[in-house]
């Protein structure tokens, strides 16, 4: 008879290597397998009286009953956070740093228990929770302890936002919690966090650890629950900010629900991130990278490299390597230390994945799945490769959120970029090439918040994470992430009146000639002034408006100042197209070149300063002295952004990568700007100059009441070497034009400084393509003041941060 050892000696098979769960089971037992809400550092039974059952996806076994918070429970959690806010936010940074440091240390001390419970609850392999998730959780608290320590010196112009409502998904329950909580409390905010119902348990375990670390009651409150709890957080009037990570669909709902409330919002949403392999890549490394890209966490990763783009010349050999590698993946018990893919979080999710795969095959894709054994019981999905996929297939466009990669080929570098960017998302990208020129060139051209060169799914607290396009806005991590939890000290939380978003907005009847007025009494003894026609300024040309209507513009004294074109939807359409035509050329100019042009703009404005001052005085009724001051301030502001055209390019992030992580400040693209009525020149310059200084192009709607100073200004633009299409000016009814811009799918951001009502509608309309918005809620802005009129906020709003990870080493 052969011993088992002798048998294995010949087969050389892998055996089971289970992680012990005794501590995790004991913890659940000690809580009676019934977990309540964590409010004010105490367990509170839900007022709703409801619980839901949380199961382990690998076994289907119940782990615990978890409280299902209702609206009253969310309010109780909110009240706790609100009560804790004054004392917490008033603490010196050093004191908060001590708390966060204690939290980081306690997390490390309980790291194995956290990892085991996380793997049980979510189904992810213990290797990932143990080696990736939990160490990153501790890292986030360490990193942000540091920011608390230096807050008073490094972030002196800012104050905490207030009480934050945070909603996180089920794919990285602990890590997403850390991403949300650490920066928020470090900066002096207090929070109510709702975990996803599939995976609530580690949040409650961590809550206990927070209390153990001595965090004061109310600073962090964990409210478990489902849709009702989530809706209650989003709609609760008290929260000063909502931070959400989850699907783009829900993100859009939240954007609309919070529109016009004055709540800050950050959204980290879906993705369909490209994984681009060039013919000069290390193909074995890239195949291994693909494992980390799409089979990490069973592909349930928002930034998963789910679209494989491989150069046609190496497609066969690379796909063969991928298939070989797939054959060695092991699927099974997430607590087994030799498992690559654990369980899918829930049968609902598995069925969704399977439906996508079947649809892909029905549309013509070729399916490859390795011959791996799946456990008899539990919720699993095989690693899946779909080849023969074309962009037009749904599986190439839609986020599958499972272990499924779709493969497409490209012929040229240009086509690689085109395919990579042929998506509504923009969360991440991975680029594989041994040519530094090629890799960096593509890294700059791909529209994504994170770009990994010759690596993938690398994360660190020092690097901001977040998306372009419908992948959301806001960053988590890095210095840029702090600003999601800060507001300038001069600015109070906007509290705009409630706006009824169901009523019609942005509608106007085109203008008619002025009623009988001063002209009818004109002195016949002198020749009249020459009739001037202010046109639109689109694509570097003065353009008649599509509708051929004009608006009568009066001076402050009621006399006719002139007419301005009454722009309409089609003028906006044309202006956006002109802007796009100019965008890439302008964005790729050097900062030095843009600075020179801005200086030249200031120079040419200065030459006509008296004329502009006179126009401002006549239009607005400002005293001559103030009008002259507005022109001088505008000139100074142009100098400011000429100065900053080459001084805001980004930073090197100090991540754990051996190499360089660049936080590049990239142009946003096409920005729609609706100017306020007051200070028509200074406000226009204050908004347009930072945008173009940082490489974006704009479609600007000047002051509705005083547009003529801006139409005068386009003559200055024309003489200042600003390329056609970089600044486009459409006059008319602000809200009509803003509505078109806010809804436009090809506009990347909308800044709106009209009234509160319009602010609300712009925020709501922006949800269509998840463009970034920046609105004034009708609050007055002191455009002359440096802190309000040329604050760092203008620069933050003018760029998006792309983190480029560049490993080094030879």
């Amino acid at each position, binding site marked *: 008879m052969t011993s*088992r050892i002798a048998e294995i000696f010949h087969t050389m098979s892998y055996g089971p290597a289970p992680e012990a769960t005794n501590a995790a089971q004991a913890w659940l037992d000690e809580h009676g397998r019934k977990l309540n809400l964590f409010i004010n550092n105490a367990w509170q039974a839900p007022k709703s009286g409801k619980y839901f059952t949380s199961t382990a996806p690998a076994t289907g076994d119940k782990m615990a009953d978890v409280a299902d918070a209702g609206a009253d429970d969310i309010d109780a959690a909110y009240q706790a956070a609100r009560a804790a806010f004054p004392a917490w936010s008033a603490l010196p940074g050093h004191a908060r740093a001590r708390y966060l440091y204690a939290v980081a240390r306690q997390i490390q001390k309980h790291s194995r228990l956290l990892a085991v419970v996380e793997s049980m609850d979510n189904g992810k392999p213990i290797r990932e929770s143990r080696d990736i998730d939990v160490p990153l959780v501790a890292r986030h608290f360490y990193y942000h302890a540091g920011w608390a320590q230096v807050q008073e010196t490094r972030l002196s112009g800012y104050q905490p936002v207030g009480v934050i409502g945070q909603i996180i998904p089920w794919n990285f329950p602990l890590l997403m919690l850390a991403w949300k909580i650490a920066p928020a409390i470090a900066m002096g905010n207090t929070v109510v966090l709702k975990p996803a119902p599939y995976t609530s348990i580690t949040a409650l375990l961590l809550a206990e650890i927070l209390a153990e670390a001595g965090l004061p009651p109310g600073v962090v409150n964990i409210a478990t629950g489902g849709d009702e709890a989530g809706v209650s957080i989003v709609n609760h009037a008290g929260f000063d900010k909502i931070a959400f990570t989850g699907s783009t669909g829900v993100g859009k709902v939240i954007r609309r629900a919070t529109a016009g409330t004055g709540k800050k919002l950050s959204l980290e949403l879906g993705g369909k991130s490209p994984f681009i392999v060039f013919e*000069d890549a290390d193909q074995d490394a890239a195949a291994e990278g693909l494992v980390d890209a799409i089979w990490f966490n069973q592909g349930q990763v928002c930034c998963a490299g789910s679209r494989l783009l491989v150069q046609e010349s190496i497609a066969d050999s690379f796909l063969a390597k991928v298939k070989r590698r797939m054959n060695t993946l092991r699927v099974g018990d997430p607590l087994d230390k030799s498992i690559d893919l654990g369980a899918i979080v829930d049968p609902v999710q598995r069925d969704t994945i399977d439906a996508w795969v079947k649809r892909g095959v029905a549309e013509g894709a070729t399916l490859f799945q390795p011959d791996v054994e799946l456990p008899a019981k539990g919720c699993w999905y095989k690693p899946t490769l779909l080849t023969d996929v074309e962009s037009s297939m749904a599986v190439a466009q839609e986020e599958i959120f499972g272990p499924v990669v779709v493969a497409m080929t490209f012929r040229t570098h240009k086509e690689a970029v085109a395919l990579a960017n042929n998506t509504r998302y923009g969360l991440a990208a991975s680029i594989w090439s041994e040519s530094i020129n090629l890799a960096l060139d593509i890294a700059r051209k791909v529209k994504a918040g994170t770009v990994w060169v010759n690596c993938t799914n690398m994360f660190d607290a020092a690097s901001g994470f977040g998306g372009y396009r419908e992948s959301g806005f806001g960053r988590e991590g890095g210095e840029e992430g702090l600003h999601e939890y800060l507001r300038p000290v001069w600015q109070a939380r906007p509290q705009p009146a409630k706006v009824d978003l169901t009523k019609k907005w942005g509608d106007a009847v085109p203008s008619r000639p002025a009623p009988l007025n001063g002209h009818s009494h004109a002195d016949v003894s002198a020749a009249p002034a020459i009739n001037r026609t202010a046109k639109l300024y689109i694509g570097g040309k003065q353009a008649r408006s599509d509708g051929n209507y004009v608006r009568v513009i009066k001076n402050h004294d009621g006399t006719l100042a002139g007419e301005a074109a009454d722009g309409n939807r089609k003028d906006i359409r044309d202006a956006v197209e002109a802007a796009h035509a100019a965008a890439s050329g302008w964005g790729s100019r050097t900062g030095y070149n843009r600075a020179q042009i801005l200086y030249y703009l200031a120079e040419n404005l200065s030459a006509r300063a008296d004329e502009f001052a006179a126009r401002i005085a006549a239009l607005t009724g400002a005293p001559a002295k103030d009008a002259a001051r507005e022109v001088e301030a505008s000139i100074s502001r142009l100098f400011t952004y000429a100065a900053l055209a080459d001084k805001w390019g980004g930073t090197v992030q100090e991540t754990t990568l051996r190499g360089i992580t660049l936080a590049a400040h990239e142009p946003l693209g096409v920005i729609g700007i609706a100017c306020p009525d007051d200070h028509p020149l200074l406000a226009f310059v204050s908004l347009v100059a930072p945008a173009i200084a940082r490489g974006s192009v704009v479609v600007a709607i000047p002051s509705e009441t005083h547009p003529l100073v801006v139409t005068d200004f386009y003559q200055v633009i024309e003489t200042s070497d600003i390329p056609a299409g970089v600044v486009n000016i459409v006059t008319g009814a602000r809200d009509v034009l803003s509505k078109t811009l806010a809804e436009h799918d090809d506009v990347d951001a909308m800044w709106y400084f009209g009234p509160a009502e319009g602010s609300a509608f712009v925020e709501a309309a922006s949800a269509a393509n998840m463009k970034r918005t920046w609105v004034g809620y009708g609050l007055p802005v002191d455009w002359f003041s440096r802190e309000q009129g040329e604050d760092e906020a203008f620069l933050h709003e003018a760029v998006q941060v792309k983190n480029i990870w560049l490993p080094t080493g030879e």
Partner: protein
Amino acid sequence: MAVREPRTKSTANGQGQAAHDDARNPGIPLDMGWVKSQRVNTSAVERRAATMGTRRSVKKDWQAAWLLRAITCIDLTTLSGDDTPGNVLRLCAKARQPVRADLLEALGMADEGVTTGAVCVYHNRVADAVDALKGTNIPVAAVSTGFPAGLTPHRLKLEEIRESVAAGAREIDIVISREHVLLGHWDALYDEVKAFREACGPAHMKSILATGELSNLRNVAMASLVAMMAGSDFIKTSTGKEPVNATLEVSLVMCRMIRAYYERTGHKVGFKPAGGLRTAKQAMNWQILMKEELGDDWLMPNLFRIGASALLTDIERQLSHHVTGRYASDKYMPMG
């Protein structure tokens, strides 16, 4: 491609000591286009190597079985200036009986004929070792060609190989001229290794690349390919005398080249890490590397060898722990 070794009790030593009966790597003409097309991304290799041992865990009976398998892959080595017939005889005795009989019995492995893969010595000790291993199927390997630096005249290197083969060495571990790699003289490297291979005749040739002296991983990849094109039966990381010897990173690169060569030519070339492998844990990391990157065939001694001396004792201690449940001491393990 991961074909399990057929279990044949008739094979001596239970090792599948088939290396010497198998079809050998005949080599192929030098293909410079292929050599030059190699790309190796160092940081990506490092990441893969770093997680090799964290993605897989081999425990309990599996651990014991894997470690016993590792023993059959050890080229039990002594390469010291003061080697005498006496210490070589002792080493050979250990090679024949690498694990205490009572432990093998307890592990249910008494009938498997576990021995090390080979004994590896300098030329002057070959005859002693061959003599000491009579009656076994354990081959004697001789390091050769001006080992370790390889800076002796080419003519003498060929002569050294022939003499060792004549003295009974069935395996020859040659060293390449590093200058050919560092200067990009790939044709010279090819010619050199091909000449060594011819001189080896029936003896199997392991080509030591001395990766610690090749500057970078791309050079390791290209040198691996050239050495295989020239007919190496094994490629081997190091002499054990370089400042940096076997690492998982260079091993990963070499294994990927072995796989590429096999996929293109159908010839299976073996792999031998050497230098610095002292612990059972390390040995298992390398076994995981072989299984994951090349498949089960490359876990057997005809395609996998570990050049080591102290490693065997550590493995024996682990096996003792498996049997007794107590942590073990060297003094209970007969020395080699």
